[in-house]
């Protein structure tokens, strides 16, 4: 019995300690005078530039004396799980960034505070990116507003490409990549889990991800004729890649900076990783392959820009925010013209249509991003789509395609699983 008692005592001490430390985190808001407190803003990934973060913090703390603002960066990987627990708890963050395709899972379940019509007008109204406003609405009520949009572009360095011409159609793109591929150099550097890159191939070949049928159920389209043609071309493109067949799209600057990549299809902000100094905390290669970094929008089947995935983020105030009033003020700053101009300067498309001109036009990478965004498309508009992403079935399917397995079988299995989730 002795052992067990000691164990129990240790456990209870540990539990009490944990409990106490959990209590320490929340501060009681003062009941008199202006409400003060610490507002926690969660941004995801490295898209939000350092300059904008500093501006948000200093402006907020200036406007609300006595209050502080903390920015906490989250990872895209596993975001839906994390938000589900974090936003429903009593220790929820105040303002959160959420992927536009993930927003519906939370707006439909009441995780975000409502944005009234009056507030909506105040924050930009019709000037806000319409597709993203729609992504953040649920049953006619605004919950999440646009934060920024960004579509993928194809990066390259002429030092690697040599005299090869930049491709002008999707077929040419794959063919060029194939001719550039050697044992040491990827034609298209494409880690198998990066399924966002695969969507344009599906759409350009006439396929679809999932569409609602007349009876209201969803039908997945990877095994449709166009879908299969797309998947075959994707497998061809994977063959030109030396990237890990089951790898993720993290640290893409590492292989690029080794000069082992001809084409890299990635979000436009990756450029800052590549253009970083060699001795930076996360090293880039400003002196070598980053010095002549260029980009073009992924070409379509018949020339022009391909229909790419409209990536981007929405932003919302958490329903369980301890300081909703302060959180709204932070939201106001993040949607202000000044803040959004800083977002635009990095080549991302700002949340307001009127600020689109702020994206530097003379920068070829930013221009490629704007060009790509014009024909960008979204994932299926179902609140359960986020569950499809979170279940990891797309990553698994494209990993298998990268590994060279039979496309038709994978497509059928994938469609079955997607329909199962969307129609559950």
């Amino acid at each position, binding site marked *: *019995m002795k052992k*067990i008692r000691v164990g*129990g*005592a240790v456990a*209870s001490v540990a*539990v*009490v300690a944990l*409990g106490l430390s959990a209590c320490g985190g929340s501060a009681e808001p003062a009941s008199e005078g202006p409400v003060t407190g610490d507002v926690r803003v969660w941004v995801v990934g490295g898209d939000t530039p350092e300059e904008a973060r500093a501006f948000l913090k200093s402006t907020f703390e200036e406007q609300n004396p006595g209050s502080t603002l903390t920015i906490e960066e989250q990872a895209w*990987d*596993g975001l*839906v*799980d994390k938000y*589900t*627990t974090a936003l*429903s708890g009593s220790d929820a963050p105040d303002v959160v960034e959420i992927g536009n395709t993930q927003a519906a*899972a*939370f707006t*439909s*379940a*009441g*995780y975000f505070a409502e944005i009234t019509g009056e507030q909506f007008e105040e924050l930009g109204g019709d000037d806000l990116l319409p597709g993203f406003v729609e992504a953040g609405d649920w049953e006619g009520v605004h919950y999440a507003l646009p934060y920024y949009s960004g579509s993928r572009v194809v990066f390259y360095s002429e030092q690697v490409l040599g005299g090869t011409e930049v491709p002008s159609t999707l077929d040419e793109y794959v063919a060029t990549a194939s001719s550039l591929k050697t*044992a040491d150099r990827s034609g298209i550097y494409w880690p198998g*889990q990066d399924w966002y890159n695969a969507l344009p191939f599906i759409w350009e070949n006439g396929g679809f991800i999932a569409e609602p049928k007349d009876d209201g159920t969803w039908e997945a389209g990877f095994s449709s004729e166009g879908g299969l043609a797309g998947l075959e071309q994707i497998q061809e493109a994977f063959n030109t890649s*030396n*990237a*890990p*067949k*089951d*790898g*993720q799209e993290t640290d893409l600057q590492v*292989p690029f900076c080794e000069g082992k990549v001809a084409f890299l299809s990635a979000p436009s902000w990756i450029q800052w990783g590549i253009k970083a100094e060699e001795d930076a905390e996360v090293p880039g290669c400003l002196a070598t392959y980053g010095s002549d970094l260029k980009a073009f929008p992924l070409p379509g089947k018949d020339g022009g820009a391909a229909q790419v995935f409209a990536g981007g983020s929405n932003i919302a105030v958490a*329903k369980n925010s301890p300081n909703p009033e302060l959180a709204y003020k932070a939201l106001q700053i993040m949607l202000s013209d000044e803040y959004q101009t800083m977002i635009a300067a990095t080549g991302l498309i700002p949340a307001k249509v009127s600020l689109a001109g702020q994206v530097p036009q003379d920068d070829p990478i930013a221009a490629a991003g704007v060009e790509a965004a014009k024909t960008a498309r979204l994932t299926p508009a179902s609140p359960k789509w986020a*569950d499809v992403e*979170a*279940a*990891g*079935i797309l*990553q*698994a399917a494209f*990993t*298998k395609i990268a*590994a060279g397995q039979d496309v038709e079988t994978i497509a059928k299995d994938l469609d079955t699983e997607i329909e199962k*989730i969307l129609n559950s």
Partner: protein
Amino acid sequence: MTTSFLDAPAPASPPPTRRSSRPPRRRKPVLPWLLLSATLVVLGVFTGYPIVRLVVMSFQEYERAQLMGTPAEWVGFDNYVSILTDLDGFWTVLLRSFVVMVICVVLTMVIGTLLALLMMRLGKGLRVLVSVGLLLAWAMPPLSATIVWGWIFDTEYGIVNNLLTRITGDRWFGHSWLLDPLTFFMILVIIVVWGAVPFVAFTMYAGLTQIPGEVIEAAQLDGASALQRFRLVQIPYVSGIITVLIVLSMIWDLRLFTQVFALQTIGGDREATNTIGVYIFQTGMAQGHYGVAGAIGVIFVFIMMGLSSYYVRRTVQEEEL
């Protein structure tokens, strides 16, 4: 309440006459319960309440919206029926977990025992060295360990692919170890066994060194070979320790989570590599079906209780001696 504890006579009822002839009844021990109360409250709040919620939830349709306050609907045994009829999902995952568990437990026990026997034969200096090595592996958090092992087997830059390329002369760069479920589980088993061996080795070493030297010596004089001494003398002496170690290892290896989850993030096919712990997390946290995940949890609790009942019974028997 207090009156009954203090045995104060109730004025309304006549005092029982027979009681006075008996020796005074021992008072109920209050102090032990008082001392235990803090632990009990903490256990009730942090373990008891979640378990009750888990069971309640498993009979409800509980999704993300319910988490934010929408009332949950009672669905009876629907969640259980859908799980127990799900051959491709639940049963496959459960079978996979058991196979992984059996392999891990066997390897852990064999390697751990061999290490304990080795330590008994080593000189002091070497024994300290081995102990420190084992302790370091034991002290390493599973998450860090998994990430480091992930780097070792990294597709592009991993040391294993590098060495294989040098030794065989073939090109191993770009070979994904995690892509094939079979090699995924091979790496998983390495990580789990690597982390579990120190505990078994130390416990077995402690047990084996407690066997009186005379017994071994006597067996030796009777002509028992080293293998016979191990099988017929040493093993029976520590059989109690061995069963406890096996049962504990079974429980630990069945509820694997960190290593599988972290390894799946590095690479591999989630669908084909889920074990029960990760499956519950996937169903509940990632997809938001808390009711179904709760029901799997309850079923899993029963499986675990079945496994640990032996351990508990054994512990209780030893207490009684």
